């Protein structure tokens, strides 16, 4: 009975959407905002990656809201699990074999380096804070799965995450203090296509990369600790 109602509802929505999608042409865009960002983005921000300049500079406030949502989800996850008594008994973890353990110890700094490269050069090549933070979190996932018994200290995780968020908001408030608006680009633009260019964009992306990496690693740590 439930299936028949669901299929009838979906059939009605399919007919409606297929009539509407026929009007959208594929491969032509009429938007003026995208053209403005493409034409003026190079002189106004100095970043080579236009998507980065849209995310951090032109729509920086939306990125602040997204960081707030991620932070709320991580806190909610910690609050849902935090009311169990932490087991202080030293449990016996079976150690992994020597080949797997050595492989993990060799790969972990390499993956961290690749993740850091992705979020440091976010304004020159495809990439940025969120992609680099996800790669850093996968390095921590590798460590939790293979080298059993090694943990990240809770306190240093929280310190890194809070510092990342504070640097982002602090940069925005400096723009407010000098009188030109929140998240105003106040550092010099520099030379095009070098590392130290585009004002405050690399600094904000580095802070976001650290914050997202530490947050996702903390989420994984909470889930694995819960499921033992």
């Amino acid at each position: 009975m439930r299936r028949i109602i669901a299929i009838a509802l979906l059939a009605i929505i399919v007919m409606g959407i297929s009539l509407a999608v026929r009007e959208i042409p594929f491969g032509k865009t009429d938007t003026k905002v995208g053209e403005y960002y493409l034409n003026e983005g190079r002189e106004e921000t100095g970043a080579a990656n236009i998507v980065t300049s849209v995310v951090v500079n032109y729509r920086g406030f939306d990125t602040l809201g997204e960081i707030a949502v991620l932070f709320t989800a991580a806190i909610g996850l910690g609050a849902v699990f935090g009311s169990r008594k932490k087991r202080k008994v030293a449990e016996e973890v079976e150690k992994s074999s020597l080949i797997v353990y050595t492989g993990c110890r060799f790969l972990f700094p390499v993956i961290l380096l690749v993740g850091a490269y992705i979020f440091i050069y976010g304004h020159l090549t495809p990439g940025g804070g969120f992609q680099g933070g996800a790669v850093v979190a996968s390095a921590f996932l590798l460590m939790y799965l293979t080298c059993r018994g090694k943990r990240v200290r809770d306190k240093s995780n929280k310190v890194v995450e809070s510092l990342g968020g504070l640097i982002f908001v602090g940069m925005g408030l400096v723009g407010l203090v000098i009188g030109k608006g929140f998240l105003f680009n106040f550092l010099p633009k520099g030379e095009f296509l070098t590392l130290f260019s585009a004002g405050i964009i690399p600094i904000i992306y580095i802070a976001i990369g650290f914050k997202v990496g530490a947050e996702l690693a903390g989420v994984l740590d909470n889930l694995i600790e819960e499921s033992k």
Partner: protein
Amino acid sequence: MNFLSQYIYYIGAFGLFFIGLYIMLTKKNLIKVIIGLDILDTGVFLFLIAIGYTSGGTAPIFSKSVTETGKMVDPVPQALVLTGIVIGVSVLALALALAIRLYGHYGTLNLRKIKEQRW
């Protein structure tokens, strides 16, 4: 062939959307419903990126060889989808944490049985 080349990405995006919606409407296990939410999110992101595509366009990134904005793809939908992906993963993580606590409290993940046990 002409019809396919115009609409193939829209068919793929809406196909995923409807399969995800069907999973969320009819399945009983809570984790299956959350898998349906993930598939629905992916379908919507595909549709957003397919709208911002121009024929013969290239990625909106300057480099030493690409120095003019003659034919570049629209950058605004890509920024929106980047935000959407991160919010999607945080909703999924919180939903799975609540599912784990529900299982610990009720002993089952069947949605019909959980609805019957009130208080």
